[in-house]
């Protein structure tokens, strides 16, 4: 008895429904909370692909840390619906946005219809990963051997961003 399609479709449906809520909700916090639920559904989808590490990181980093900070900032700045109204795009801008979104959507549909999944499977099949000691081990070994330079460069970039943020905050307060 394979029930994974049930889970897949329910996760997908909830994700799409709440993505809609992110756009349609008036209150910014309600949008942000809907986005959390979307992230959670993505985590579920990753977990169903047996990518437990990615699922855990998705929830830990996106839903658990980044969105909390988002909500934190929204709460502190106290953005409400009327102040957002002044930021509305004009008629031309709105037309452009709608046209671009439709174009992007049709591009995606076209891409999914025209391309076929690759016939050959990459080096990491589920069996290979099991033999090598699970997702986490394989990923961390790759990160700390082959991809050590990009990995460290990314962290330096993040460090730079943090230092920059602190510098800007300090300069404004004096």
């Amino acid at each position: 008895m394979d029930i994974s399609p049930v889970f897949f479709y329910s996760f997908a449906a909830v994700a799409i429904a709440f993505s809609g809520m992110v756009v349609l909700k008036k209150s910014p916090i309600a949008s942000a909370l809907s986005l959390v639920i979307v992230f959670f559904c993505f985590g579920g989808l990753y977990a169903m692909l047996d990518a437990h590490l990615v699922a855990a990181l998705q929830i830990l980093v996106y839903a658990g840390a980044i969105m909390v900070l988002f909500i934190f900032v929204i709460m502190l700045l106290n953005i409400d619906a009327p102040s957002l109204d002044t930021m509305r795009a004009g008629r031309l801008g709105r037309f452009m946005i709608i046209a671009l979104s439709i174009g992007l959507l049709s591009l995606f549909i076209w891409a999914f219809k025209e391309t076929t999944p690759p016939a050959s499977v990459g080096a990491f099949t589920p069996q290979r990963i099991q033999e090598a000691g699970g997702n986490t081990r394989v990923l961390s070994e790759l990160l700390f051997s082959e991809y050590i330079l990009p990995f460290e460069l990314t962290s330096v970039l993040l460090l730079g961003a943090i230092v920059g943020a602190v510098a800007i905050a300090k300069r404004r307060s004096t």
Partner: protein
Amino acid sequence: MDTFDWVATAVKILIVLVPLLSVAPVMAWVERRGSALMQNRKGPNRIGPLGLLQSIPDAIKFMGKEDPIPGHVEKFYYVLAPLASLIVPFLTFAVIPFASSMTIDGRVINFQIADLNVGFLFILAVGSLGVYGIIMAGWSSNNKYALLGSLRSSSQMISYELSMGLSVIGIVMAFSTVHLGEIARAQGEVLMTLGPLTIPKWGIFIQPLGFLIFLTTAFAETNRLPFDLPEGESELVAGYHLEYGSMKFALFMMAEYMNMAVASGFIASLYFGGWQMLPGMHSVLDVLGLSGLTFDIVRVAFEALSFLLKLCFFMWFFVWVRWTLPRFRYDQLMDFGWKVLLPLSLANIFITGVMIYYRWY
């Protein structure tokens, strides 16, 4: 999955779910009774022996009360908030191993509901969602005290989550796995022998600093005293659950106690050997002289009992600390989290690295 797996999973879920649900009433009694005894009072002692059944009328009271939704709240999130905070401990407990494996009919059963190979990352990930229940409650209540409480709690949880994750890294490095079942199994090995004493390779003996950091952050993550600023009844009335009453409030209370249970289970399985039997249990098992399936069942029962005892000790520890320490001031809390715990946990990782390099583990 076939019928055998379904039945095994259902049994495991029952074994976990029933105690987890009864944690709140039992702990409410322990908390009231314990605090009373520490303050030279008697506490609830009328209903049942030692007042043990006190929670039943309490529960009836919670259910019987009117359940109003105030007019000024955001209804959807207001109702969702207690559920969101209740789901988290249920989810997290699924990956905590409460006994080792046993073999029935050639099939191996691991006593852990979800045998994920990301183990503790899952707990951290889902545990970090606990803050949403509080944020939603605080924000949707449209009340300044509730909002202040939820702001405090979210900043507190973000700050302490970092140190919590980093302090567990030490354990992960020492046992070189993130799989909770394997961590628990690895703690059965002997660390050293001091005369008649055999010291097992429990997490606390190889990561004492990591244990202290983890314990402290566990208190902060469960919003228990001395880190209960989100509630802070003397300054915020009741904090994030100010606008809640009746069963919705009871759900918050259950979530708090179940979070305590999860944190205790986590501490027990990372630092106190998880289901590894307590000293003396092995000899009892030898004396019984069982074999075959009966032996396996008794062994698993003993392991589950050991885990339960460890868990109960830490649950009691939570209560004990609550009635001993006063609350932190907010700036002290932040200073402590960022300036003390974070550097300490980084130092712990460094020390662990050095020790692994020289093969002291």
